[in-house]
């Protein structure tokens, strides 16, 4: 095959490369009245990452999807502009004698993520490694969780972090991928049996137990551990991803229905058993009952959304500060979407949501065009994991669901989140590439 110029991708990268620096400049001028070198450096660095990735893919004759990356880059650019706008001492690293601010650290992770993505997108020529060792992947996943339970330390009440030398790492993020690989492998093998269920209880058909049990067992362990670690957002994400993959593998709505019933029943039990779950539900139902206490985060997020209005306060002109700190808590991670919605308004927040939707629908397109069941299920799982994560956190910010602390992919500050999101993109690109090359699917 000849060289693939990836022209569509390039045409979409041009406006990003032109507009993203403008975002940094406008924000910087609005905030300080001057134009500093730092934000320009960020813009330049980000542009270099985007272009290098594009050129490497072209040189590697990669024929993977051409809309996926532009959508991810524009989402990331909005996030980086927002992070650069926030107080830089909220997070950051100092390494090799350099003190990197929050946005610079995030850019560094974008670079690391891009490398990981390229390695996977180009290097993974065959999915046997993923497909045949699914139980090993499951074991690795459980190992990660156990390690977190044993050696992890708590941040904000959730025990999610492991210390790896100078950097903290969230194994739960990596677990997302490992679990999706296992489920995809298992479902690809057993989906025909699962789909032709014979057992019925009432109006619900039940999959044959011997085939479902290993998966349910593993899943039960994961859910238990996650609830034990007090990370409800991740639990919800895993469960939703699992149900969706089950649905795509079998085409049975009843499985999803059973899953939802189990979830509601489980939530009810959790509500009765665990105080912290009950407290969260109560806050969700009426955050204004205790606006300075339990409802604080939700109420502050809603105020920020309201301040944004239709057109927003303008970049660098929103985010009222009281006593030197912004009124939105965790503004660089869980609530970055509300900060963006405040400065860019409904127009901006819907646009950001639309870019995430583009990633999701391109991912599903890759799944639909995939050359085999495993790849299709893997692509579905990865995509849904990204999409649900965005829906859960944005839905939580807007009080559609109870608020849970998870990141917005490509936008929230956080190395683990960025790295894992890029690994997912890499896997998607690799699946897409193989389906184009081997089946002649449209690229």
């Amino acid at each position: 095959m000849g060289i693939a110029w990836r022209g569509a991708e390039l045409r979409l990268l041009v406006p990003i490369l032109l507009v993203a620096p403008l975002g940094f400049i406008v924000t910087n001028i609005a905030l300080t009245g001057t134009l500093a070198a730092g934000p320009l450096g960020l813009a330049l660095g980000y542009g270099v990452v985007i272009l290098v990735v594009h050129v490497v893919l072209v040189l590697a004759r990669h024929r993977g999807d051409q809309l996926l990356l532009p959508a991810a880059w524009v989402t990331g650019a909005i996030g980086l502009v927002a992070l650069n706008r926030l107080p830089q001492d909220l997070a950051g690293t100092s390494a090799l004698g350099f003190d990197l601010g929050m946005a610079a650290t995030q850019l560094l992770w974008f670079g690391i993520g891009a490398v990981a993505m390229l390695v996977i997108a180009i290097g993974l020529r065959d999915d046997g490694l993923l497909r045949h060792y699914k139980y090993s992947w499951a074991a690795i996943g459980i190992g990660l969780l156990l390690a977190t339970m044993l050696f992890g330390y708590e941040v904000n009440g959730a025990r999610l972090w492991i210390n790896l030398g100078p950097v903290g790492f969230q194994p739960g993020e990596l677990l997302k991928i490992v679990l999706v690989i296992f489920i995809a492998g298992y479902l690809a093998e057993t989906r025909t049996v699962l789909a032709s269920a014979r057992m019925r209880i009432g109006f619900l058909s039940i999959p044959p137990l011997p085939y479902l049990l290993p998966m349910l067992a593993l899943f039960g362990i994961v859910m238990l551990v996650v609830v034990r670690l007090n990370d409800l957002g991740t639990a919800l994400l895993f469960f939703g991803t699992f149900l969706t993959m089950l649905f795509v593998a079998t085409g049975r709505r009843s499985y999803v229905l059973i899953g939802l019933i189990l979830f509601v029943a489980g939530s009810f039990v959790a509500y009765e058993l665990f105080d912290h779950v009950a407290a969260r539900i109560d806050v969700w139902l009426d955050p204004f009952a205790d606006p300075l206490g339990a409802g604080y985060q939700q109420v502050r997020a809603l105020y920020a959304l309201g301040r944004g209005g239709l057109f927003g306060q303008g970049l660098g002109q929103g985010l009222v500060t009281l006593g030197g700190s912004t009124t939105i808590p965790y503004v660089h991670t869980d609530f970055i979407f509300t900060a963006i919605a405040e400065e860019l308004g409904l127009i901006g927040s819907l646009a950001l949501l639309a870019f995430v939707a583009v990633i999701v629908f391109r991912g599903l397109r890759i799944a639909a065009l995939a050359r085999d069941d495993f790849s299709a299920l893997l692509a579905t799982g990865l995509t849904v994991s990204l999409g649900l994560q965005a829906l859960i956190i944005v839905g939580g910010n807007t009080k559609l669901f109870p608020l849970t602390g998870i990141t917005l992919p490509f936008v929230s500050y956080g190395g683990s989140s960025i790295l894992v999101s890029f690994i997912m993109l890499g896997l998607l690109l690799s699946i897409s590439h193989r389906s184009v090359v081997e089946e002649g699917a449209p690229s």
Partner: protein
Amino acid sequence: MIATNVRRLALYLMLSFFLVSGSLTWWQVVQARSLATRPDNPEVIAARRALLRGTIFDATGQPLATSSLVDGLSLRAYADPAFTHVIGYSSHRFGATGLESAFEDLLVGRADTNPIRDWIGDVLARQPQPRDLSLTIDRRLQDFAAAQLGPDAGAIVALDPMTGAVLAMVSSPTFDANPLAGDPADAQAPMDALRNDPGDPLLPRARHGVYVPGSILKVFTGAAALDAGVITPTTTFPDQPRQEIEGMLVDGFLITEHDLGGITPQLWSLSEALQVSSNIFFAHVGLALGQDEFLSYARRFGFCAPGIIGPADRALSFASSLVTEAVAGDCGSFSDNAELASAAFGQGATLVTPVQMALVAATIAGGGVMPAPFVVRDVREHAADHVRSDTVLETFNSGGGRRIVSSDVASAMRSGMLDAVNGELGRLFAGQADITLYGITDARSAGKTGTAQLGGDRPPHSWFIGFAPAQEGGTPAIAIAVIVESGGSGAGRAAPIAGRIMAEWIRISR
């Protein structure tokens, strides 16, 4: 097959994205204004520090709450502590309460009386225009009423029974709100002192103080029974004279009469029973009425649900309950006839608030129609120097009355309450509420005392509800409820206070 399922999944995910988009639109556009004006919004709190608030005047144009800018900080000053529990306070540290909270958006100019002007203001990013308020309360009457209670704990609510306009609303003890409204750095200590005060000065007793009603509830019981047709003004109960002495056995519980002060029990009808405040008579009335009718009338009188003092969209709330073990949103029920009979004369498991009882008096005064109470008369343009502007932007009127009992029933109760103050027997108990004692000789007052037994060694609450002018052909100008906590008998403490205030209002309004 998988590809088909993926397409179906795409549809569901698209719906989810639409759902989240809808949720975003809801908060960012539909709810944006109401979020922006919530008093606990940190932006509102920050902006308020520099925002001039409108002046609040009494009914005659006397400034009660004024704002001034000191070094860019907007400071609120309150002229009269007697109004604290009506106006509330606006504090940079503790937020706003009372009317300061209910009218927050208008006072600081974040909303206007006219939604179209609101919208234009938003588009033009106009500077907020503070608005001024006039109350229905005349400062002279409010101060007079507050002085009657003095340092004693209690509450007074006076209404115009025809319109529902609040004429006075006193909660005692009150407090000076100026330290809370002043420099936020100095506000914590005074607030702590108020919170730790055993006298509970922060409680707005007129609206949220719940008290055993005692005999003033007989006005309700009588009106309900007359309206239901189970008694007439001439109905008597043959066993009553004997039971006044021996007691009345209901479901194994012996109901006894209070000290009649040497009056020989006779066969009494409604008027005499109100005059001597016969518990036995009203126990019979309650049993004749029955639990279901009793509670159904309680609901009609608004006893079983929280109420508001208007205007409706910027209202002050008041608590309301009749049966202590009330279920949410309703009156609950009596466990047996002994409880019903006790409730019928205002003891047992009953609790009321002063606003509620003033509304009961206003209902009888108003010919059976209960007025919707309101405390803000109008919204005006803000004028400098704390002078009331003549430009009225919006006027509030009575929200309209609700017919509770027929005018015949109200007329019979009016006559009974007139006797309770002026009659041969009634004078011995409630004579101190007679306005002729306080210089109004061409009109008569009507009413009912209450001596609410609290059990144990605590002295009873002293109650009076009534209205004036109450004579045949007179138009009532004021309906009133007075309670003095642990003030002893209704006759001794609350009745003269009510008499003086009713006389004072007739004097002022002439």
